[in-house]
């Protein structure tokens, strides 16, 4: 088994594919709804209010410090639902595999995805497998979609945001993008960076359960913290002021960024949520965050302001203020 490779027959709908599905996917994902040979999974949702999301993962390399494409695709989709105030319930898992991928590699990816889903308490209920000829894709691409139900967060929107609200983040930024970049092996330096890739639904659910002070949140993926904040500012009648010195950045990540001319605020994360919260609740929410290992380094990084409507301002470490824009141009391809 260990030297076997994926061939086109594994995607051709015949016995090889049935065996792959039965022995690998169903075994690993093993949820009662998963009938891989049915056309769709049948669900009984807790609520008619749902959230629905999808993402394709093409990260290169497929294994990187802190994770792999299997872990990433689960965490990413769980987070996309969670930040909308929904409780992730079930996921789909569809992969496009390049002929020749060692079966052992696929197994490892599928196991990671399964573990991650179990850890996050979500079920993988439906899926698909396509195999394309060598050279027609790059190892493996995975697309996950997810359904969440919305017991919390009815009021989550930019509407209630007002001057004085605090802006929180649950820890260090830039780890994912830089760890993937370093894993490509073409930086001439050693980089100590591990992807922060993790499902945040537990953290977010705790916060929403313990405090009604959360007004809005997003995970800071492609485009980094800067993109999320820019989007937020454009969507409110207020401004945003960030204190750069308070934004947690690991020294190793900062060093790579300085060398390559990147701004850590532009680098992708896969386990970071930005929250706008009522000022009076900020301390309490930070306390809840810090109880969770995924929020151990949570801090307040700024606040919503009356002035400078629609823009994000950044107080630099030397005390000056400049505007923070979303990244423009191509930064790093295939980090997610």
């Amino acid at each position, binding site marked *: 088994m260990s030297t076997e490779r994926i061939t086109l027959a594994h995607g051709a709908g015949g016995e090889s594919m049935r065996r792959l599905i039965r022995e690998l996917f169903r075994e690993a994902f093993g949820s009662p709804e998963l009938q891989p040979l049915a056309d769709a999974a049948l669900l009984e949702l807790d609520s008619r209010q749902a959230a629905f999301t999808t993402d394709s993962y093409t990260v290169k390399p497929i294994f990187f410090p802190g994770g792999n494409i299997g872990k990433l695709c689960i965490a990413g989709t769980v987070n996309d639902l969670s930040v909308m105030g929904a409780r992730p319930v079930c996921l789909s898992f569809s992969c496009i595999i390049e002929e020749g991928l060692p079966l052992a590699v696929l197994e490892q990816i599928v196991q990671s995805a399964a573990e991650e889903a179990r850890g996050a308490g979500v079920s993988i209920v439906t899926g698909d497998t396509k195999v394309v000829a060598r050279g027609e894709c790059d190892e493996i691409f995975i697309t996950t979609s997810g359904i969440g139900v919305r017991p919390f967060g009815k009021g989550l929107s930019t509407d209630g945001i007002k001057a004085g609200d605090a802006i929180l983040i649950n820890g260090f930024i830039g780890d994912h993008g830089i760890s993937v970049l370093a894993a490509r092996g*073409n*930086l*001439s330096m050693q980089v100590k960076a591990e992807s922060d890739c993790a499902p945040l639904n537990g953290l977010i659910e705790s916060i929403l359960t313990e405090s009604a002070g959360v007004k809005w949140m997003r995970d800071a993926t492609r485009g980094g913290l800067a993109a999320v904040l820019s989007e937020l500012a454009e969507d409110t009648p207020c401004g945003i002021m960030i204190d750069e*010195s308070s934004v947690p*950045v*690991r*020294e190793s990540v*900062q*060093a790579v960024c*300085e060398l*390559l*001319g*990147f*701004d850590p605020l532009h680098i992708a994360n896969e386990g970071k949520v930005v929250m706008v919260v009522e000022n009076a609740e900020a301390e309490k929410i930070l306390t809840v965050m810090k109880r969770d290992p995924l929020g151990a380094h949570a801090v307040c990084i700024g606040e919503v302001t009356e002035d*400078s409507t*629609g*823009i994000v*301002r*950044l107080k*630099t*470490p*030397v*005390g*000056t*203020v*400049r*505007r923070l*824009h979303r990244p*423009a*141009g*191509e930064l790093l391809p295939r980090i997610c």
Partner: protein
Amino acid sequence: MNVFDQWRNAAVAKPLAESIRSIAGERPIRIMEVCGGHTAAIYRFALQRMLPGTIQFLHGPGCPVCVTGTDFIDRAIAIARAEKTTVASFGDLIRVPGSTLSLAEARAAGSSVEVFYSAMDALEWAVHHPDRTVVFLAIGFETTACTIAAALSEAVRRQVKNFRILSAMKTMPGALHALLSDSRTNVDALILPGHVCSVIGSQPFEFIAHELRIPCVVSGFEPLDILESVRMLSCQLVEHRCEVEIQYRRAVKPSGNVAAQQIMEQMFEPVDMTWRGLGSIPASGLGVRREYSAWDAASLAGKTAPSKEPPGCRCGDVLRGSIRPEECSLFRKACTPDRPRGACMVSSEGACAAVYQFAGAEDEH
């Protein structure tokens, strides 16, 4: 608390800015920095805002991508069109518009263009792809040139015959001579490029202080480095001194890095070089030495049509410090980092990109 905090510290920066203000008084001071790293840092930390309006930064021709001419891009694209040829490039360069396409667009249209972080990586790639001719686009100043020299030396030692260099490498001192001797240039003081000086030392710039009578400081790249350098320049001006002082002592010696100089000399020789905005400057570039011409891609570059600059683009004026980026009519309208029209909007060290990305907290939306 990380290592960068010591050079990015409001508690130190504020008194330093105060001291500059009191030294310079009402005196207008036009300071040119000629390294893109300085340009980026000045905007990123909004240093202008700490200083009196009388002190102004002018941005010189210090961004390696920006000073690379359109003709070089056109030649690279022509080379990339050849069969079994891969053009190896630093990342930013592939987004610089040529006369009709950028290298990124040429790649999207089917040419083989690979991005590397160093010449040595490109060399390794060539070793692993023996059936392809790999042409490395050598741009940059002495800082980069010495690493390219090392890769070339390695290619020669290992006789990697499918690795070649297309050079647009440039040297700073000659270019500064040309720029600062030009009567249109109006500069009171100079922040010298720290990284370049760490390689060639500060001595090659002495002529600026002594012949051209312009005070110089070799500066580091952190905000406190730059503020400190501005203070040192203000002192020189007030005291009517013209010297080359070194602020960036943790990296720069007057004589530079001799080993790095040697390998450059061994592999390269001075050639005339075309600079975007400055035109051709005698002996301001580095070419592959004749004895290594088997590794020189200059002969590969077929004829290309005469290069055309993007209509309306004023990168040349920006690079000479004659206009600020905002004064170009394309800026932030037709020309953005996402769809750059001119080279200065491409690199994070380009003045236009820096202004686009960092400027405008109070003044724009």
